[in-house]
Protein backbone atom coordinates (compact mmCIF):
# COMPACT_ATOMS: atom_id res chain seq x y z
CA UNK A 1 0.00 0.00 0.00
CA UNK A 2 3.02 2.26 0.25
CA UNK A 3 4.02 1.46 -3.29
CA UNK A 4 2.97 4.88 -4.44
CA UNK A 5 5.11 6.66 -1.86
CA UNK A 6 7.85 8.71 -3.52
CA UNK A 7 10.25 7.38 -0.86
CA UNK A 8 10.23 3.90 -2.32
CA UNK A 9 10.94 5.04 -5.84
CA UNK A 10 13.52 7.72 -5.13
CA UNK A 11 16.35 6.65 -2.78
CA UNK A 12 17.86 10.14 -2.80
CA UNK A 13 14.88 11.24 -0.71
CA UNK A 14 16.17 9.08 2.12
CA UNK A 15 19.49 10.88 2.02
CA UNK A 16 17.73 14.25 2.13
CA UNK A 17 15.61 13.00 4.99
CA UNK A 18 18.55 11.92 7.13
CA UNK A 19 20.40 15.07 6.23
CA UNK A 20 17.53 17.18 7.51
CA UNK A 21 17.06 15.37 10.82
CA UNK A 22 17.53 17.74 13.74
CA UNK A 23 19.56 15.22 15.78
CA UNK A 24 23.20 14.66 14.83
CA UNK A 25 23.75 11.31 13.15
CA UNK A 26 26.95 9.61 12.01
CA UNK A 27 27.69 6.28 10.39
CA UNK A 28 30.93 4.79 11.67
CA UNK A 29 33.04 1.97 10.27
CA UNK A 30 35.82 -0.04 11.82
CA UNK A 31 37.78 -3.14 10.93
CA UNK A 32 39.66 -4.12 14.05
CA UNK A 33 39.59 -3.12 17.67
CA UNK A 34 43.29 -2.33 17.77
CA UNK A 35 43.20 -0.25 14.60
CA UNK A 36 42.55 3.33 15.68
CA UNK A 37 42.90 4.98 12.30
CA UNK A 38 40.56 2.37 10.83
CA UNK A 39 37.64 3.81 12.77
CA UNK A 40 36.17 6.32 10.39
CA UNK A 41 32.90 8.10 9.92
CA UNK A 42 31.55 7.66 6.42
CA UNK A 43 28.48 9.81 6.83
CA UNK A 44 27.58 12.81 8.97
CA UNK A 45 24.40 14.82 8.59
CA UNK A 46 24.24 18.59 8.85
CA UNK A 47 23.49 18.58 12.57
CA UNK A 48 26.44 16.27 13.23
CA UNK A 49 28.77 18.39 11.16
CA UNK A 50 27.70 21.43 13.15
CA UNK A 51 28.00 19.74 16.53
CA UNK A 52 31.42 18.22 15.94
CA UNK A 53 32.63 21.01 13.67
CA UNK A 54 33.64 18.70 10.86
CA UNK A 55 34.12 20.01 7.37
CA UNK A 56 34.61 16.82 5.37
CA UNK A 57 31.88 14.26 4.58
CA UNK A 58 34.07 11.43 5.81
CA UNK A 59 37.22 11.08 7.83
CA UNK A 60 38.90 9.58 10.83
CA UNK A 61 36.51 9.24 13.74
CA UNK A 62 39.13 10.58 16.16
CA UNK A 63 39.44 13.80 14.19
CA UNK A 64 35.75 14.45 14.85
CA UNK A 65 35.35 13.26 18.41
CA UNK A 66 37.84 12.09 21.02
CA UNK A 67 35.63 11.90 24.10
CA UNK A 68 36.34 8.53 25.78
CA UNK A 69 32.65 7.97 26.59
CA UNK A 70 31.64 8.34 22.93
CA UNK A 71 34.53 6.19 21.73
CA UNK A 72 33.67 3.36 24.08
CA UNK A 73 30.03 3.47 23.02
CA UNK A 74 31.15 3.22 19.38
CA UNK A 75 33.48 0.32 20.19
CA UNK A 76 30.70 -1.59 21.89
CA UNK A 77 28.44 -1.27 18.88
CA UNK A 78 31.17 -1.99 16.35
CA UNK A 79 33.00 -4.87 17.95
CA UNK A 80 30.60 -6.37 20.49
CA UNK A 81 27.62 -5.89 18.24
CA UNK A 82 25.63 -4.53 21.17
CA UNK A 83 23.52 -1.42 21.66
CA UNK A 84 25.27 1.12 23.84
CA UNK A 85 24.32 4.44 25.43
CA UNK A 86 26.48 7.12 26.88
CA UNK A 87 26.67 10.74 27.79
CA UNK A 88 28.67 13.43 26.05
CA UNK A 89 29.38 16.96 27.17
CA UNK A 90 31.05 19.46 24.85
CA UNK A 91 33.67 21.78 26.26
CA UNK A 92 33.19 24.73 23.93
CA UNK A 93 32.13 28.09 25.35
CA UNK A 94 28.52 26.98 25.00
CA UNK A 95 28.74 23.63 26.68
CA UNK A 96 26.03 21.17 25.68
CA UNK A 97 24.96 17.89 27.23
CA UNK A 98 24.01 15.16 24.83
CA UNK A 99 22.84 11.58 25.14
CA UNK A 100 24.84 9.35 22.77
CA UNK A 101 23.52 6.12 21.33
CA UNK A 102 25.36 3.63 19.14
CA UNK A 103 23.63 0.81 17.29
CA UNK A 104 25.38 -1.92 15.28
CA UNK A 105 24.50 -1.97 11.59
CA UNK A 106 26.19 -5.23 10.69
CA UNK A 107 28.77 -5.57 7.94
CA UNK A 108 29.32 -3.20 5.06
CA UNK A 109 29.89 -4.17 1.43
CA UNK A 110 33.67 -4.38 1.88
CA UNK A 111 33.41 -6.48 5.03
CA UNK A 112 34.05 -3.70 7.53
CA UNK A 113 31.79 -3.35 10.54
CA UNK A 114 29.24 -0.54 10.57
CA UNK A 115 27.51 1.28 13.39
CA UNK A 116 25.09 4.14 13.74
CA UNK A 117 25.97 6.92 16.17
CA UNK A 118 23.27 9.36 17.22
CA UNK A 119 23.24 12.29 19.58
CA UNK A 120 20.28 13.74 21.37
CA UNK A 121 20.52 17.17 22.95
CA UNK A 122 19.47 17.24 26.59
CA UNK A 123 21.00 20.61 27.41
CA UNK A 124 17.66 22.36 27.78
CA UNK A 125 16.20 19.85 30.21
CA UNK A 126 19.20 20.05 32.48
CA UNK A 127 19.49 23.80 32.13
CA UNK A 128 15.90 24.52 33.09
CA UNK A 129 16.39 22.60 36.28
CA UNK A 130 19.69 24.24 37.16
CA UNK A 131 18.40 27.71 36.32
CA UNK A 132 15.45 27.28 38.62
CA UNK A 133 17.64 26.25 41.52
CA UNK A 134 20.07 29.11 40.93
CA UNK A 135 17.27 31.60 40.51
CA UNK A 136 15.73 30.74 43.85
CA UNK A 137 19.05 30.84 45.67
CA UNK A 138 20.15 34.13 44.12
CA UNK A 139 16.83 35.87 44.32
CA UNK A 140 16.12 35.09 47.94
CA UNK A 141 19.60 36.13 48.99
CA UNK A 142 19.61 39.44 47.15
CA UNK A 143 16.07 40.44 48.02
CA UNK A 144 16.68 39.93 51.70
CA UNK A 145 18.68 43.15 52.20
CA UNK A 146 16.17 45.66 50.81
CA UNK A 147 13.35 43.74 52.43
CA UNK A 148 15.02 43.91 55.84
CA UNK A 149 15.50 47.63 55.39
CA UNK A 150 11.84 48.09 54.38
CA UNK A 151 10.47 46.28 57.39
CA UNK A 152 12.89 48.18 59.62
CA UNK A 153 11.51 51.50 58.45
CA UNK A 154 7.92 50.33 58.74
CA UNK A 155 8.60 49.47 62.35
CA UNK A 156 10.11 52.92 62.97
CA UNK A 157 7.18 54.65 61.27
CA UNK A 158 4.75 52.79 63.47
CA UNK A 159 6.81 53.49 66.55
CA UNK A 160 8.52 56.66 67.57
CA UNK A 161 8.49 58.39 64.17
CA UNK A 162 4.71 58.21 64.11
CA UNK A 163 4.07 61.88 64.69
CA UNK A 164 7.17 63.34 63.11
CA UNK A 165 6.26 64.52 59.58
CA UNK A 166 9.86 65.39 58.62
CA UNK A 167 11.20 61.95 59.55
CA UNK A 168 8.22 60.25 57.92
CA UNK A 169 8.90 62.06 54.66
CA UNK A 170 12.56 61.08 54.78
CA UNK A 171 11.88 57.43 55.59
CA UNK A 172 9.24 57.14 52.90
CA UNK A 173 11.80 58.41 50.41
CA UNK A 174 14.28 55.72 51.44
CA UNK A 175 11.57 53.07 51.34
CA UNK A 176 10.65 54.15 47.84
CA UNK A 177 14.28 53.80 46.77
CA UNK A 178 14.51 50.32 48.29
CA UNK A 179 11.27 49.25 46.63
CA UNK A 180 12.63 50.54 43.30
CA UNK A 181 15.77 48.53 43.87
CA UNK A 182 13.77 45.39 44.48
CA UNK A 183 11.79 46.02 41.32
CA UNK A 184 15.01 46.48 39.33
CA UNK A 185 16.41 43.29 40.79
CA UNK A 186 13.36 41.27 39.91
CA UNK A 187 13.33 42.71 36.39
CA UNK A 188 17.00 41.84 35.90
CA UNK A 189 16.62 38.38 37.38
CA UNK A 190 13.71 37.48 35.16
CA UNK A 191 15.46 38.84 32.13
CA UNK A 192 18.60 36.90 33.01
CA UNK A 193 16.83 33.60 33.48
CA UNK A 194 14.96 34.10 30.22
CA UNK A 195 18.22 34.79 28.40
CA UNK A 196 19.82 31.76 30.00
CA UNK A 197 17.04 29.51 28.79
CA UNK A 198 17.52 30.75 25.24
CA UNK A 199 21.28 30.65 25.38
CA UNK A 200 21.57 27.63 23.12
CA UNK A 201 19.06 28.75 20.57
CA UNK A 202 20.96 30.50 17.78
CA UNK A 203 19.69 34.06 17.34
CA UNK A 204 17.68 34.84 14.24
CA UNK A 205 17.68 38.08 12.31
CA UNK A 206 20.14 40.67 11.13
CA UNK A 207 20.66 44.00 12.85
CA UNK A 208 22.33 47.18 11.66
CA UNK A 209 24.64 48.11 14.53
CA UNK A 210 25.17 51.73 13.40
CA UNK A 211 21.48 52.45 13.55
CA UNK A 212 20.88 50.45 16.72
CA UNK A 213 23.75 51.90 18.75
CA UNK A 214 22.81 55.39 17.54
CA UNK A 215 19.31 54.94 18.93
CA UNK A 216 20.49 53.59 22.27
CA UNK A 217 23.01 56.43 22.63
CA UNK A 218 20.28 58.95 21.90
CA UNK A 219 18.02 57.38 24.49
CA UNK A 220 20.80 57.34 27.08
CA UNK A 221 21.73 61.00 26.51
CA UNK A 222 19.27 62.39 29.09
CA UNK A 223 20.65 60.04 31.76
CA UNK A 224 24.16 61.17 30.84
CA UNK A 225 23.18 64.85 30.96
CA UNK A 226 21.66 64.29 34.38
CA UNK A 227 25.06 63.13 35.63
CA UNK A 228 27.04 65.64 33.57
CA UNK A 229 28.48 62.96 31.31
CA UNK A 230 28.88 63.52 27.59
CA UNK A 231 28.37 60.66 25.14
CA UNK A 232 30.91 60.70 22.32
CA UNK A 233 29.47 58.41 19.60
CA UNK A 234 31.79 57.52 16.73
CA UNK A 235 30.24 55.21 14.15
CA UNK A 236 32.66 53.64 11.71
CA UNK A 237 32.94 54.87 8.16
CA UNK A 238 31.50 51.70 6.62
CA UNK A 239 27.78 51.97 6.92
CA UNK A 240 25.65 49.97 7.65
CA UNK A 241 27.27 47.28 9.83
CA UNK A 242 25.08 44.19 9.65
CA UNK A 243 25.49 41.61 12.40
CA UNK A 244 23.62 38.43 13.17
CA UNK A 245 21.51 38.78 16.23
CA UNK A 246 18.29 39.46 18.00
CA UNK A 247 17.52 43.15 18.11
CA UNK A 248 16.13 43.38 21.64
CA UNK A 249 19.03 41.51 23.14
CA UNK A 250 21.67 43.53 21.36
CA UNK A 251 19.90 46.70 22.53
CA UNK A 252 20.19 45.32 26.05
CA UNK A 253 23.93 44.71 25.62
CA UNK A 254 24.55 48.27 24.41
CA UNK A 255 22.28 49.70 27.09
CA UNK A 256 23.97 47.84 29.94
CA UNK A 257 27.46 48.74 28.77
CA UNK A 258 26.43 52.40 28.40
CA UNK A 259 24.69 52.45 31.80
CA UNK A 260 27.79 51.12 33.47
CA UNK A 261 30.05 53.61 31.71
CA UNK A 262 27.79 56.53 32.68
CA UNK A 263 27.46 55.23 36.22
CA UNK A 264 31.18 55.12 36.84
CA UNK A 265 32.18 58.26 34.92
CA UNK A 266 33.23 61.30 36.97
CA UNK A 267 31.25 64.52 36.46
CA UNK A 268 31.93 66.29 33.20
CA UNK A 269 33.87 63.39 31.66
CA UNK A 270 33.01 61.85 28.32
CA UNK A 271 32.09 58.27 27.45
CA UNK A 272 33.47 57.19 24.10
CA UNK A 273 31.53 54.73 21.99
CA UNK A 274 33.32 53.38 18.92
CA UNK A 275 32.18 50.96 16.27
CA UNK A 276 34.49 49.06 13.93
CA UNK A 277 33.74 46.36 11.41
CA UNK A 278 35.45 43.65 9.39
CA UNK A 279 37.82 42.42 12.12
CA UNK A 280 39.26 38.92 11.88
CA UNK A 281 39.14 36.49 14.78
CA UNK A 282 42.78 37.01 15.60
CA UNK A 283 42.25 40.75 15.65
CA UNK A 284 39.40 40.17 18.05
CA UNK A 285 41.68 38.14 20.28
CA UNK A 286 44.73 40.40 19.93
CA UNK A 287 45.75 42.03 23.15
CA UNK A 288 46.45 45.68 23.77
CA UNK A 289 49.83 46.57 25.19
CA UNK A 290 50.26 47.43 28.82
CA UNK A 291 46.73 47.54 30.15
CA UNK A 292 45.50 44.33 31.79
CA UNK A 293 42.77 42.82 29.70
CA UNK A 294 40.62 39.76 29.97
CA UNK A 295 38.05 38.20 27.75
CA UNK A 296 34.89 37.41 29.67
CA UNK A 297 33.46 35.63 26.64
CA UNK A 298 35.80 34.22 24.00
CA UNK A 299 34.53 34.81 20.46
CA UNK A 300 33.50 31.65 18.69
CA UNK A 301 36.05 30.84 15.97
CA UNK A 302 33.36 29.82 13.50
CA UNK A 303 32.75 33.32 12.21
CA UNK A 304 35.04 34.92 9.70
CA UNK A 305 34.67 38.54 10.59
CA UNK A 306 33.52 40.55 13.54
CA UNK A 307 32.21 44.00 14.29
CA UNK A 308 33.41 45.51 17.52
CA UNK A 309 31.65 47.94 19.80
CA UNK A 310 33.97 49.63 22.25
CA UNK A 311 32.71 51.63 25.22
CA UNK A 312 35.38 53.58 27.09
CA UNK A 313 34.88 55.53 30.30
CA UNK A 314 37.28 57.60 32.38
CA UNK A 315 36.04 56.24 35.68
CA UNK A 316 38.02 54.77 38.58
CA UNK A 317 38.89 51.61 36.63
CA UNK A 318 38.91 48.07 37.92
CA UNK A 319 41.78 46.47 39.79
CA UNK A 320 43.39 43.57 37.98
CA UNK A 321 42.49 41.02 40.62
CA UNK A 322 38.81 41.89 40.24
CA UNK A 323 38.68 41.47 36.45
CA UNK A 324 37.94 37.72 36.36
CA UNK A 325 34.98 38.11 38.66
CA UNK A 326 33.30 40.89 36.71
CA UNK A 327 30.66 38.88 34.94
CA UNK A 328 29.81 36.86 38.04
CA UNK A 329 26.26 37.35 39.20
CA UNK A 330 25.74 39.89 41.94
CA UNK A 331 29.42 40.71 41.97
CA UNK A 332 30.00 44.37 42.59
CA UNK A 333 33.48 45.80 43.00
CA UNK A 334 34.05 46.58 46.69
CA UNK A 335 32.21 49.54 48.10
CA UNK A 336 29.61 49.63 45.37
CA UNK A 337 27.02 47.56 47.13
CA UNK A 338 25.23 50.66 48.28
CA UNK A 339 25.10 54.38 47.74
CA UNK A 340 24.45 56.45 44.66
CA UNK A 341 26.06 53.95 42.27
CA UNK A 342 24.33 50.85 43.49
CA UNK A 343 23.40 48.50 40.69
CA UNK A 344 21.85 45.08 40.74
CA UNK A 345 25.14 43.38 39.94
CA UNK A 346 23.46 41.59 37.05
CA UNK A 347 24.15 43.96 34.16
CA UNK A 348 27.37 42.35 32.96
CA UNK A 349 26.12 38.84 33.65
CA UNK A 350 23.25 39.60 31.27
CA UNK A 351 25.65 41.01 28.67
CA UNK A 352 27.84 37.93 29.00
CA UNK A 353 25.00 35.51 28.43
CA UNK A 354 23.70 37.44 25.44
CA UNK A 355 27.16 37.62 23.85
CA UNK A 356 27.61 33.92 24.47
CA UNK A 357 24.35 33.17 22.74
CA UNK A 358 25.34 35.36 19.79
CA UNK A 359 28.71 33.56 19.61
CA UNK A 360 30.38 36.88 20.05
CA UNK A 361 33.09 38.00 22.43
CA UNK A 362 33.34 40.36 25.37
CA UNK A 363 36.66 41.79 26.45
CA UNK A 364 37.40 44.16 29.28
CA UNK A 365 40.61 46.09 29.66
CA UNK A 366 41.08 48.30 32.64
CA UNK A 367 43.57 49.51 35.20
CA UNK A 368 42.95 51.30 38.47
CA UNK A 369 42.67 55.05 37.95
CA UNK A 370 42.79 54.74 34.17
CA UNK A 371 39.18 54.06 33.28
CA UNK A 372 37.81 50.93 31.69
CA UNK A 373 37.07 49.77 28.17
CA UNK A 374 34.51 47.11 27.38
CA UNK A 375 34.58 45.71 23.87
CA UNK A 376 31.84 43.51 22.47
CA UNK A 377 32.52 41.51 19.31
CA UNK A 378 29.58 40.51 17.14
CA UNK A 379 29.86 38.01 14.27
CA UNK A 380 29.02 39.89 11.08
CA UNK A 381 26.25 38.72 8.80
CA UNK A 382 27.09 37.58 5.31
CA UNK A 383 30.42 37.55 3.53
CA UNK A 384 32.73 40.37 4.52
CA UNK A 385 34.22 42.59 1.80
CA UNK A 386 37.65 42.69 3.34
CA UNK A 387 39.05 41.34 6.55
CA UNK A 388 41.19 43.94 8.25
CA UNK A 389 43.99 42.55 10.34
CA UNK A 390 44.77 44.15 13.67
CA UNK A 391 47.22 46.98 13.32
Amino acid sequence: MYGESPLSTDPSLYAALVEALPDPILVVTGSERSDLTGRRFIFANTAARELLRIIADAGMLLSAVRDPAVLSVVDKALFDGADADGFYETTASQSRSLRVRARPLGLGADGTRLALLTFHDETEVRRVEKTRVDFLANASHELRTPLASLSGFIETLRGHAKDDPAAREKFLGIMQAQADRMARLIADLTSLSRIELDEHVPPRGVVDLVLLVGEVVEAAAPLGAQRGVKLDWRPCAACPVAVRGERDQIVQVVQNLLDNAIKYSPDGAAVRIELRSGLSELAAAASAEGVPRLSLVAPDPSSESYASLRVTDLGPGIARQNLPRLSERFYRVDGQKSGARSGTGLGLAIVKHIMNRHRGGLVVSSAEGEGSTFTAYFPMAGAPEAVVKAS
Partner: protein
Amino acid sequence: MNEHIVRSYEDELNSLAAECVRMGGLCEAQVADAVTGVVKRNQDLAAAVVGRDDKLDEAERDIERKTIRLIALRQPVADDLRRAVAAMKVANNLERCGDLAKNIAKRTLVIIESDPLTPLTRSIERMGKLVLGRLSSVLDAYSRSDLERALAVWSQDDEVDEHYNSLFRELLTYMMGDPRTITACAHMLFVAKNLERIGDHATNIAEIVHYEITGAEMVGGRPKTDELRL
Protein backbone atom coordinates in the same frame (compact mmCIF):
# COMPACT_ATOMS: atom_id res chain seq x y z
CA MET B 1 48.68 -8.03 18.69
CA ASN B 2 48.57 -7.45 14.98
CA GLU B 3 52.25 -7.49 14.08
CA HIS B 4 51.42 -9.81 11.24
CA ILE B 5 49.69 -6.98 9.46
CA VAL B 6 52.20 -5.14 7.34
CA ARG B 7 51.29 -1.52 7.65
CA SER B 8 52.57 1.27 5.59
CA TYR B 9 54.82 3.89 7.04
CA GLU B 10 52.17 6.56 6.57
CA ASP B 11 49.67 4.37 8.44
CA GLU B 12 52.03 4.05 11.35
CA LEU B 13 52.53 7.80 11.57
CA ASN B 14 48.79 8.40 11.36
CA SER B 15 47.97 5.92 14.04
CA LEU B 16 50.60 7.47 16.30
CA ALA B 17 48.85 10.82 15.97
CA ALA B 18 45.48 9.12 16.43
CA GLU B 19 46.62 7.54 19.67
CA CYS B 20 47.76 10.93 20.89
CA VAL B 21 44.35 12.37 20.09
CA ARG B 22 42.62 9.54 21.92
CA MET B 23 44.90 10.11 24.88
CA GLY B 24 43.97 13.80 24.65
CA GLY B 25 40.31 12.85 24.92
CA LEU B 26 41.04 10.80 28.02
CA CYS B 27 43.01 13.65 29.50
CA GLU B 28 40.21 16.15 28.83
CA ALA B 29 37.74 13.85 30.55
CA GLN B 30 40.07 13.51 33.54
CA VAL B 31 40.44 17.28 33.90
CA ALA B 32 36.71 17.87 33.39
CA ASP B 33 35.78 15.23 35.97
CA ALA B 34 38.38 16.49 38.42
CA VAL B 35 36.95 20.01 38.20
CA THR B 36 33.36 18.79 38.45
CA GLY B 37 34.36 16.65 41.41
CA VAL B 38 35.79 19.53 43.36
CA VAL B 39 32.99 21.94 42.42
CA LYS B 40 30.10 19.56 43.10
CA ARG B 41 31.91 17.94 46.05
CA ASN B 42 31.46 14.55 44.45
CA GLN B 43 33.51 11.89 46.20
CA ASP B 44 32.77 9.10 43.73
CA LEU B 45 33.81 11.19 40.77
CA ALA B 46 37.06 12.21 42.46
CA ALA B 47 37.85 8.62 43.34
CA ALA B 48 37.13 7.57 39.74
CA VAL B 49 39.58 10.18 38.44
CA VAL B 50 42.30 8.88 40.76
CA GLY B 51 41.62 5.32 39.59
CA ARG B 52 41.71 6.14 35.89
CA ASP B 53 45.10 7.86 35.90
CA ASP B 54 46.85 4.56 35.13
CA LYS B 55 45.24 4.54 31.70
CA LEU B 56 46.95 7.78 30.79
CA ASP B 57 50.32 6.59 32.03
CA GLU B 58 49.90 3.42 30.02
CA ALA B 59 48.94 5.41 26.92
CA GLU B 60 52.01 7.60 27.27
CA ARG B 61 54.35 4.63 27.60
CA ASP B 62 52.72 3.03 24.59
CA ILE B 63 53.09 6.11 22.41
CA GLU B 64 56.69 6.54 23.49
CA ARG B 65 57.48 2.94 22.68
CA LYS B 66 55.87 3.16 19.27
CA THR B 67 57.58 6.43 18.44
CA ILE B 68 61.00 5.06 19.30
CA ARG B 69 60.29 1.94 17.27
CA LEU B 70 59.19 4.04 14.32
CA ILE B 71 62.25 6.27 14.50
CA ALA B 72 64.55 3.27 14.76
CA LEU B 73 62.99 1.23 11.96
CA ARG B 74 61.87 3.90 9.50
CA GLN B 75 64.40 6.63 10.19
CA PRO B 76 62.03 9.46 9.32
CA VAL B 77 63.34 12.84 8.22
CA ALA B 78 61.89 16.36 7.90
CA ASP B 79 58.08 16.53 8.30
CA ASP B 80 57.77 12.89 9.29
CA LEU B 81 60.41 13.17 11.97
CA ARG B 82 58.68 16.24 13.36
CA ARG B 83 55.36 14.41 13.44
CA ALA B 84 56.87 11.50 15.33
CA VAL B 85 58.65 13.71 17.83
CA ALA B 86 55.57 15.89 18.26
CA ALA B 87 53.45 12.84 19.10
CA MET B 88 55.87 11.83 21.81
CA LYS B 89 56.06 15.33 23.26
CA VAL B 90 52.30 15.85 23.19
CA ALA B 91 51.85 12.54 24.99
CA ASN B 92 54.36 13.69 27.58
CA ASN B 93 52.46 16.91 28.26
CA LEU B 94 49.14 15.10 28.40
CA GLU B 95 50.47 12.66 30.95
CA ARG B 96 51.54 15.57 33.14
CA CYS B 97 48.06 17.11 32.79
CA GLY B 98 46.62 13.78 33.89
CA ASP B 99 48.83 13.76 36.98
CA LEU B 100 47.68 17.25 37.86
CA ALA B 101 44.04 16.24 37.41
CA LYS B 102 44.63 13.25 39.65
CA ASN B 103 46.18 15.54 42.24
CA ILE B 104 43.09 17.78 42.13
CA ALA B 105 40.91 14.73 42.68
CA LYS B 106 43.01 13.58 45.64
CA ARG B 107 42.70 17.00 47.24
CA THR B 108 38.96 16.96 46.58
CA LEU B 109 38.69 13.95 48.87
CA VAL B 110 40.15 16.09 51.67
CA ILE B 111 38.32 19.29 50.79
CA ILE B 112 34.87 17.73 50.99
CA GLU B 113 35.43 16.94 54.64
CA SER B 114 35.15 20.63 55.53
CA ASP B 115 32.27 23.05 54.96
CA PRO B 116 31.61 24.27 51.40
CA LEU B 117 33.05 27.62 50.31
CA THR B 118 30.44 28.53 47.72
CA PRO B 119 31.80 31.72 46.05
CA LEU B 120 35.23 30.16 45.93
CA THR B 121 34.09 27.02 44.16
CA ARG B 122 32.42 29.26 41.62
CA SER B 123 35.78 30.86 40.88
CA ILE B 124 37.37 27.42 40.59
CA GLU B 125 34.61 26.34 38.24
CA ARG B 126 35.20 29.37 36.05
CA MET B 127 38.94 28.81 35.96
CA GLY B 128 38.46 25.11 35.28
CA LYS B 129 36.18 25.87 32.36
CA LEU B 130 38.71 28.27 30.91
CA VAL B 131 41.61 25.83 31.25
CA LEU B 132 39.57 22.98 29.83
CA GLY B 133 38.57 25.18 26.90
CA ARG B 134 42.23 25.86 26.17
CA LEU B 135 43.17 22.21 26.43
CA SER B 136 40.38 21.17 24.14
CA SER B 137 41.13 23.97 21.68
CA VAL B 138 44.79 23.01 21.44
CA LEU B 139 43.89 19.34 20.96
CA ASP B 140 41.57 20.38 18.14
CA ALA B 141 44.49 22.28 16.67
CA TYR B 142 46.71 19.20 16.98
CA SER B 143 44.23 16.75 15.51
CA ARG B 144 43.39 19.03 12.59
CA SER B 145 46.85 20.54 12.11
CA ASP B 146 45.29 23.97 12.57
CA LEU B 147 48.13 26.43 13.02
CA GLU B 148 45.90 29.46 13.55
CA ARG B 149 44.03 27.86 16.41
CA ALA B 150 47.29 26.77 18.05
CA LEU B 151 48.55 30.34 17.83
CA ALA B 152 45.34 31.63 19.37
CA VAL B 153 45.79 29.31 22.36
CA TRP B 154 49.42 30.26 22.65
CA SER B 155 48.76 33.99 22.71
CA GLN B 156 46.04 33.82 25.37
CA ASP B 157 48.05 32.31 28.15
CA ASP B 158 47.79 35.39 30.36
CA GLU B 159 44.08 34.89 31.01
CA VAL B 160 44.62 31.78 33.08
CA ASP B 161 47.23 33.65 35.08
CA GLU B 162 44.76 36.45 35.74
CA HIS B 163 42.26 33.95 37.09
CA TYR B 164 44.90 32.32 39.22
CA ASN B 165 46.03 35.61 40.73
CA SER B 166 42.45 36.60 41.41
CA LEU B 167 41.77 33.25 43.10
CA PHE B 168 44.92 33.58 45.14
CA ARG B 169 43.72 36.87 46.61
CA GLU B 170 40.27 35.48 47.22
CA LEU B 171 41.76 32.57 49.11
CA LEU B 172 43.92 34.85 51.24
CA THR B 173 40.84 36.82 52.21
CA TYR B 174 39.06 33.68 53.31
CA MET B 175 41.96 32.35 55.31
CA MET B 176 42.46 35.68 57.06
CA GLY B 177 38.77 35.94 57.76
CA ASP B 178 38.33 32.51 59.30
CA PRO B 179 41.35 30.38 60.23
CA ARG B 180 39.16 27.27 60.38
CA THR B 181 38.98 27.33 56.58
CA ILE B 182 42.76 27.21 56.18
CA THR B 183 43.00 23.46 55.52
CA ALA B 184 40.40 23.51 52.77
CA CYS B 185 41.72 26.79 51.36
CA ALA B 186 45.30 25.57 51.23
CA HIS B 187 44.13 22.57 49.23
CA MET B 188 42.05 24.84 47.02
CA LEU B 189 45.15 26.91 46.39
CA PHE B 190 46.89 23.84 45.03
CA VAL B 191 43.84 22.98 42.98
CA ALA B 192 44.07 26.43 41.40
CA LYS B 193 47.80 26.06 40.89
CA ASN B 194 47.31 22.68 39.24
CA LEU B 195 44.73 24.16 36.89
CA GLU B 196 47.14 26.94 36.05
CA ARG B 197 49.80 24.38 35.23
CA ILE B 198 47.41 22.41 33.04
CA GLY B 199 46.96 25.70 31.19
CA ASP B 200 50.73 25.92 30.81
CA HIS B 201 50.83 22.42 29.34
CA ALA B 202 48.17 23.48 26.84
CA THR B 203 50.48 26.33 25.82
CA ASN B 204 53.35 23.85 25.51
CA ILE B 205 51.26 21.69 23.21
CA ALA B 206 50.46 24.78 21.12
CA GLU B 207 54.20 25.31 20.73
CA ILE B 208 54.67 21.67 19.73
CA VAL B 209 51.90 21.96 17.12
CA HIS B 210 53.57 25.07 15.74
CA TYR B 211 56.89 23.26 15.53
CA GLU B 212 55.29 20.20 13.96
CA ILE B 213 53.64 22.22 11.20
CA THR B 214 56.23 24.89 10.46
CA GLY B 215 59.49 23.39 11.66
CA ALA B 216 60.27 26.67 13.39
CA GLU B 217 60.15 27.44 17.05
CA MET B 218 57.82 30.07 18.43
CA VAL B 219 59.59 33.41 18.46
CA GLY B 220 59.19 36.04 21.12
CA GLY B 221 58.25 35.62 24.74
CA ARG B 222 54.88 34.28 25.63
CA PRO B 223 52.56 36.93 27.04
CA LYS B 224 53.03 36.94 30.78
CA THR B 225 51.51 39.06 33.45
CA ASP B 226 53.70 40.71 36.04
CA GLU B 227 54.86 38.97 39.13
CA LEU B 228 52.14 38.07 41.54
CA ARG B 229 51.25 41.28 43.25
CA LEU B 230 50.01 41.18 46.79
